[in-house]
């Protein structure tokens, strides 16, 4: 899968002011003016400016949101939940029955995590999560989704041929293990509780956390072995 598109963050104006395209690494003196952002970047700036002028948007709040998702929220949160479920049967039971209060108590709630369902992988069933509509994803537990999760390829194929998709992630399941695919919506988001790997008896929560990959909590991977 891995569908990361190659594109440039900024385009350099090759039109009116210059009559030839210019490579990105030109030295400063070749630029009589600032680098012109791409068309969508300019459109985003326009939106932000207009909404700020109308008092609908607070630029400081935007910075705060970006900082949160770039630096504070990520798959570590989900890994914490999984490691705890592996270590504490009562916690796991409560998590599987009704995840919301359990996650709220751990502080993992908020935007796009309003209604969480945790699905457990067993020898009998392997769970996998997709959003066929767009890219609904449990932000408080996993952060912002990776590019492949948002790609057309994953969104259409996860439901149609999940075993093939899993194979591309390097996961081959035993024939007897069923695959169940959960389609996220804006109302319900899923977290996969991966199987605890063998050879992890006696590991504490912190050591277990390190084995829980992001992909294993989407169901496109397995937890790592120590």
């Amino acid at each position, binding site marked *: 899968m891995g569908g990361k598109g190659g594109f440039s963050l900024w385009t350099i104006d090759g039109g009116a002011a210059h009559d030839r395209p210019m490579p990105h690494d030109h030295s400063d003196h070749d630029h009589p003016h600032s680098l012109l952002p791409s068309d969508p970047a300019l459109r985003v700036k*326009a939106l932000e400016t207009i909404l700020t002028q109308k008092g609908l948007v607070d630029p400081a709040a935007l910075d705060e949101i970006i900082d949160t998702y770039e630096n504070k929220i990520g798959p570590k949160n989900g890994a914490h939940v999984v490691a705890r479920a592996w270590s504490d049967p009562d916690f796991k039971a409560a998590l599987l029955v009704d995840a919301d209060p359990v996650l709220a108590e751990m502080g993992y709630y908020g935007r796009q995590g309003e209604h969480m369902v945790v699905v457990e992988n067993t020898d009998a069933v392997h769970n996998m999560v997709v959003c066929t509509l767009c890219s609904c994803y449990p932000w408080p537990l996993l952060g912002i989704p990776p590019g492949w999760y948002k790609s057309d390829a994953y969104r259409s194929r996860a439901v149609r041929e999940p075993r093939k998709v899993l194979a591309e992630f390097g996961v081959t399941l035993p024939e007897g293990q069923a695959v169940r695919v959960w389609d996220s919506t*804006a109302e319900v988001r899923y977290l996969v509780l991966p199987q605890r790997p063998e050879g992890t008896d006696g590991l504490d929560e912190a050591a277990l956390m390190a084995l829980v990959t992001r992909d294993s909590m989407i169901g496109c991977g397995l937890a790592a072995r120590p």
Partner: protein
Amino acid sequence: MRPEPVFEAPWHAQLFALTVHLNEAGHFAWPDWAERFGATLKRHGLERELNGGDDYFLAWLETLETLLTDTGAAEATALRDMRAAWEAAYLRTPHGAPVTLD
């Protein structure tokens, strides 16, 4: 191995934050957003395979622009004029100097 960047381009992050902020301020409900966004992705996806990167956020941008013009929060002509004003500002600002509208 370096971790993947959360956002691949600054404008992706800015657009994301703008949308989340407007949702939290009550300008639209998230399920409504998801439905509109899903429809845009579907329309774009019919033409070519979307890669989940720039393509994805272009569809996101189109959805937000349409939503805000539909609700009257921003007028299409005002958006076009403001985009042009920023472009002009970049073109007249010497490289390295802060770019401002006035």
